[in-house]
């Protein structure tokens, strides 16, 4: 329809970032997300923003740190092994409590893996994206429309909590095309106001609040390190109460629950609809954010009725599934539909796993 545009995922996300007021992007090429820096390289000069291709992942992540410290809405992106290289700077962003949006278009792993799509970085994204035990909000869209919406949301959340936010994507999301409706761009006045509200920003002028820059051997005393980490821990605890985001679909009478996130979430949803058409009472739990993990949704399932849970993800071994298992704690049976190394999940595998649980 008139307001729909057919866009490639990586370009839709980059455009959504520009419209959300992102005025600095630094990156370094890696498949399958090269269209992101390519798009920013073309687009940033049109809006008075800055695109920089660093000499490495490490450099580009630190450039993004610098831009955020100066109060600009800033973003960097990479894929899997490239994110590993950026993880030092990401930890420093969390340490300095800087608002940055980071996109990981996951490919195969471990190591250099394949250039094909995967969801092999779940643990890295949700448990330990760098040293120091910090946490990030981790948003994972299933459709390109959700990717566009979540990009804008990521910048808002980064500023609200003054903390890096991770968009956990995959090679399919970056490479595929789908219709999207793009939001209206933020006005220049609004972008300026957001920057001005960051009184801690290093702007080259005297005055203002303490800059968010880590220097020397870290914080001055053990006490201030403790105070900072206590404050961060309180924020993480608050997230668990207030920032979970999860789609629940046809759970009311479900006998078998399919659960998946990101690209696998859309496949799982189509599998649930087909299972229903077969007469199997299937339901779906699809976390839109995988951190904080929506534990309450799983915990409040009616285990007297449910015959089992199918966990579907593009990771071998299963990673996302371990968080589900930890909440469910043996209260029902589990089955798995997994793929790795570039093969997208086939919904027939999810359906067969669900049928198997119904037979058992």
């Amino acid at each position, binding site marked *: *329809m008139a307001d*729909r*545009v*057919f866009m490639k995922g990586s370009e839709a996300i980059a455009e959504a970032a520009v419209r959300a007021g992102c005025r600095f992007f630094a990156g370094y090429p890696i*498949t*399958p997300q090269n269209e992101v820096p390519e798009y920013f390289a073309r687009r940033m000069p049109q809006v008075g923003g800055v695109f920089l291709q660093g000499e490495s992942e490490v450099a580009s992540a630190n450039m993004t740190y610098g831009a955020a410290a100066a109060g600009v809405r800033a973003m960097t992106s990479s894929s899997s092994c490239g994110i590993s290289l950026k993880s030092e700077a990401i930890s420093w962003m969390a340490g300095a409590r800087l608002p940055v949006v980071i996109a990981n278009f996951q490919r195969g792993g471990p190591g250099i893996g394949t*250039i*094909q799509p995967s969801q092999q970085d779940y643990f890295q994204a949700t448990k330990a994206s760098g040293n120091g035990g910090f946490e990030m909000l981790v948003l994972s869209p299933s*459709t390109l429309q959700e990717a566009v919406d979540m990009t804008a949301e990521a910048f808002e959340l980064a500023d609200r909590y003054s903390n890096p936010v991770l968009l956990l994507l995959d090679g*399919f999301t970056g*490479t*595929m*095309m*789908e*219709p999207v409706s793009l939001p209206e761009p933020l006005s220049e006045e609004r972008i300026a106001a957001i920057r001005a509200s960051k009184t801690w920003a290093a702007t080259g002028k005297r005055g203002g609040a303490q800059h968010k820059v880590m220097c020397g051997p870290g914080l001055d005393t053990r006490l201030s390190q403790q105070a900072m980490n206590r404050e961060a821990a309180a924020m993480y605890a608050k997230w668990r109460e207030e920032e979970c985001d999860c789609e629940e679909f046809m759970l009311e009478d479900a006998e078998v629950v399919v659960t998946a996130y990101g690209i696998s979430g*859309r*496949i799982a*949803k*189509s*599998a649930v*609809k087909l299972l229903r058409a077969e007469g199997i009472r299937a339901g779906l739990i699809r976390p839109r954010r995988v951190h904080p993990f929506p534990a309450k949704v799983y915990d409040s399932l009616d285990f007297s009725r449910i015959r089992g849970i199918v966990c579907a993800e593009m990771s071998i071994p299963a990673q996302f599934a371990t968080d589900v298992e930890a909440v469910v704690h043996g209260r029902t049976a589990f089955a798995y539909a997994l793929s790795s190394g570039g093969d*997208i*999940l*086939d*919904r*027939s595998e999810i359906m067969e796993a669900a049928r198997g649980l119904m037979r058992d």
Partner: protein
Amino acid sequence: MEKSIIIAGFGGQGVMVAGQLLCYTACETTDRYVTFFPSYGAEMRGGTANCYVVISDEPVGAPKVSRADYLVVLNDPSLERFRDAVVPGGTVFVNSSVVTHDIGRTDINVVKVDAGAIAYELGNPKVLNLVIVGAIIGYTDLLPAENVLQTAFKKLGAKRPEMNPINEAAFRRGLEIGKSARSGE
């Protein structure tokens, strides 16, 4: 209704443009759901290039399917690679100008389109993909033919308006082949 298409050939045959033309038409002239997924990442020059298109009345699940309703093969290596990636009762569209291998399946329909030869006859080998798109539309009614043509004018004609007449001629030749193949079944 959800229909999936795999289009496969070698780089330069217009595989991606053919797939995207279907997708842009679905996105811009209908309210249906549509996805496009290209696969040419690490392919060598001269190797196979392919794309996956899904058009549906419901939100699309996987943008890449293991077995499609329709397969388009523009050369022999594509036939070898994707022969089994068609559902039983599905249809394969064959660029019979260059595809010589046997289809090797009796449970699917075959539509032979002499697309390469028709494109040469029309004066530009590049319009092979428009012949094929015409055949798909004529055979399947997946999208309104006039919408596809208008989208071709809009997208392909933006840079090369002089190509509009030959693109239209190629599309209409394919359309007739598709229609007559369907009425012959």
